């Protein structure tokens, strides 16, 4: 097939994935509100189908351009959102069953992809000479994988902070006046996974997973992402030495990826520091997530440096 042919396949599959994620996201949010198990299973299936279409889109883009499909911001955004959704479906949902998180992760993916296709789209073309190196495959892949995991950790951290605030408020609120107690340890006969607490008559408590689960999962995701990000920064420095003659020049992209690294290093330290565990550490993780978004969007689009490419 020709370049135009594969490019058409890629954009069609991209649209299919985007709408599938959107539909699945609505299903997950519906489940949060109404707890219909059939709906969440259907949403999960649709999300998996969207993931498959997304994979087809990325591969077709690579075939259209005749190179690895991560050479400009449109392609990075596509691969980043694919890995974030894959990370959610494969790890958070499959291994830990925390389906309440699905809607938020898909929302991140949908927004990233919408920005990519509306503002960042460029046709498939060869790479500029500065990018034409096998280091592109190594450094950028590591950066995208690290970013997607940080993004997943970021979503989990936001949910942790929301849930933690809610639990703090519930702890000081007077106990509800009602007959009988809601025993969250006993397995209810309709709930899906052990992590889904009973909704019961206490209203909104129990919509999100408990803080302990969110905190643990956020930590695991970020701890997994951190070495990958470290590697991405180091690989970038090695590539910079070969291409630009210096491994570190405080170029805005280099600076902000270092800032992101430092903030997440701070998060990992905070979890071992008395008085900084829990909420304060989570706030640090949130700051790190914001720093990641700045590193990706703001530096590429607003701040001019060696990292900006003609045609974005």
């Amino acid at each position, binding site marked *: 097939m020709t370049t135009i042919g594969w490019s058409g396949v890629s954009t069609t599959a991209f649209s299919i994935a985007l709408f599938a994620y959107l539909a699945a996201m609505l299903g997950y949010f519906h489940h949060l509100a109404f707890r219909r198990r059939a709906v969440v299973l259907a949403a999960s299936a649709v999300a998996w189908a969207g993931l498959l279409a997304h994979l087809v889109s990325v591969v077709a883009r690579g075939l259209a351009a005749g190179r690895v499909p991560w050479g400009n911001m449109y392609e990075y955004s596509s691969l980043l959102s694919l890995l974030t959704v894959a990370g959610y479906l494969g790890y958070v949902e499959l291994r830990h069953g925390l389906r309440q998180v699905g809607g938020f992760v898909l929302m991140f993916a949908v927004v990233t992809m919408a920005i990519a296709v509306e503002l960042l789209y460029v046709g498939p073309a060869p790479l500029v000479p500065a990018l034409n190196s096998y280091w592109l495959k190594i450094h950028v892949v590591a950066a995208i994988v690290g970013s997607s995991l940080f993004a997943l950790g970021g979503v989990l951290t936001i949910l942790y902070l929301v849930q933690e605030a809610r639990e703090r408020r519930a702890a000081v609120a007077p106990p509800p006046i009602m007959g009988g107690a809601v025993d969250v340890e006993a397995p209810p006969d309709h709930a899906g996974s052990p992590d889904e607490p009973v909704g019961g008559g206490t209203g909104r408590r129990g919509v999100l997973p408990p803080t302990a689960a969110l905190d643990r999962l956020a930590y695991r995701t970020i701890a997994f992402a951190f070495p990958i990000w470290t590697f991405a920064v180091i690989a970038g420095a090695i590539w910079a030495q070969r291409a630009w003659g*210096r491994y570190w020049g405080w*170029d805005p992209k280099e600076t902000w990826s270092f*800032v992101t690294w430092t903030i997440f290093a701070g998060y990992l330290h905070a979890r071992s520091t008395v008085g900084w565990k829990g909420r304060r550490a989570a706030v640090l993780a949130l700051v790190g997530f914001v720093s990641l978004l700045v590193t990706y969007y703001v530096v590429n689009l607003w701040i001019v440096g060696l990292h900006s490419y003609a045609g974005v």
Partner: protein
Amino acid sequence: MSSVPQPRGITMRRSLALVWRTLRSMRTALVLLLLLALASIAGSLVPQAANSPEAVAAMARDHPLRAELYARLGLFDVYGSWWFTLIYTLLLLSLAACLLPRTRALVRNLRTRPQPAREVDGFRHHAAVPVGASPAEAVAAARRLLRRRRFRLSAPDGGAALAADKGLAREAGSLLFHWSFFLLLVGVAWGKGTGFTGFAVIVEGQAWTEAHANYDGNLREGTFFGEDHTGIRIRVRDFEDRYLPDGQPTDFVTRADLLSPDGTLLERVDIRVNQPAEVGGLRVYQYGYGWAPVLEVRRDGQLLAQAPIPFQQDPPPRGVSPLSLPWRGALKLPSLSPQLGVELDLWPDARGLVGLLAGRPIPMTEARDPVLLFRVYRGDLHAERVQRSADLDTRDMRQIAAGALGLGRTVDLETGEEVEPDAPGLTMTFAGLRRYTVLQVSRDRGLGLVLGAAILMLVGLLPALFSSRRRLFLRADPAPGGAVVRVGGFALQHADRFEEEFRRLVEELGRAGGPIRESAGVGAG
């Protein structure tokens, strides 16, 4: 007689101990890390003199008050400023202060064996397993099992108690990571301090010698640099750039000969982006390029000067391709009296000039009917003042002529009219058009150390994050049918993973101890 207790005073020793303890704490490290991040952010938001001097100059021009404030605060050179240096020095000190005692503790831990505990039922995870072997045999079997699982074991004293631990890799990995980070920072400081980076502008066909004077000021030497430039020569045979039809570049390559100081050919190289040349400890990178028209100046047919002149191009405005813009240069004739200077604009491709005038700029990727637009000035060149070679200081000069000049043509400098090549008077000929290449030449002896340290950082990071320190304590007491083995344990990190591991270990210990023997008499429960 009772003595009155003396009040504890503030001694130097106590103050130092307090400072040391503060530096060592995790909280200090956290604060310093975040301060470092903030300082780095400042450097990315304010234009830096090292990376974008034009932006700094633009700010000084457009917002003088703000620029003055930034300059006072050192914001135009954040990464070289005293407060940035202070923050990362403090971080280094905090790192060392934390690492030394912890390394000592780890070495001590590695040297001593785990000690058995008297009571095992008080631990977070505990179980009792009945086995068929005698207590001593059960302990021996447990010892074999745990050794296979790579636990560190207490000394075998033939007794009925055993202690095991595993996961010192976590602390070892963390220390490796942090020591490597320390080494990396040292390597960066040493490599940059004893090295240099400079730019060489070489026209096609010319040779350039690696020496302090030849960088034309485009040289940054480290603070501890030892004045030992190599004298290696680079002779550029050819520069080539290739583009797609829309102007997007696909390749830049300089073909050069590398010669030793005495002239012997060391190597023939193609220097491309992403593909530098290495020679004599130097690294040579493809950095930039430009056009160098060859101009000849004659008076009454006698050749006064002939040279290729590298032309410059200013950074283009946003959204405009630099390929569609002209190049600027200046020809200075200070030996004439009165002095003469010529400002020149080069259009490598005549279609580009036409296109720009018509409002449709096109990328000029190759030379095609190149044309020079010129303006001749007479007066005082102020040539003794150093200025950018493409600029002419026309304060004390008067324009006397202007015009356009095609390749191979000649003009009279006093009238601006085109003339025959051998015409009398002062003439300028556009004799040829060559390319020049800008190569970045640098030396950094710390590269190997920095790379090694970076790799060790990664190696240490994995066990530091994913391993956990776990301890097991075991006692075997006699019981009907054999013995009962009591096991207790805990994990310092990743407690939920340890729960699973503990359960499995208990099962295996039970199996290793053998099935219970039925006693001949009344059976136990």
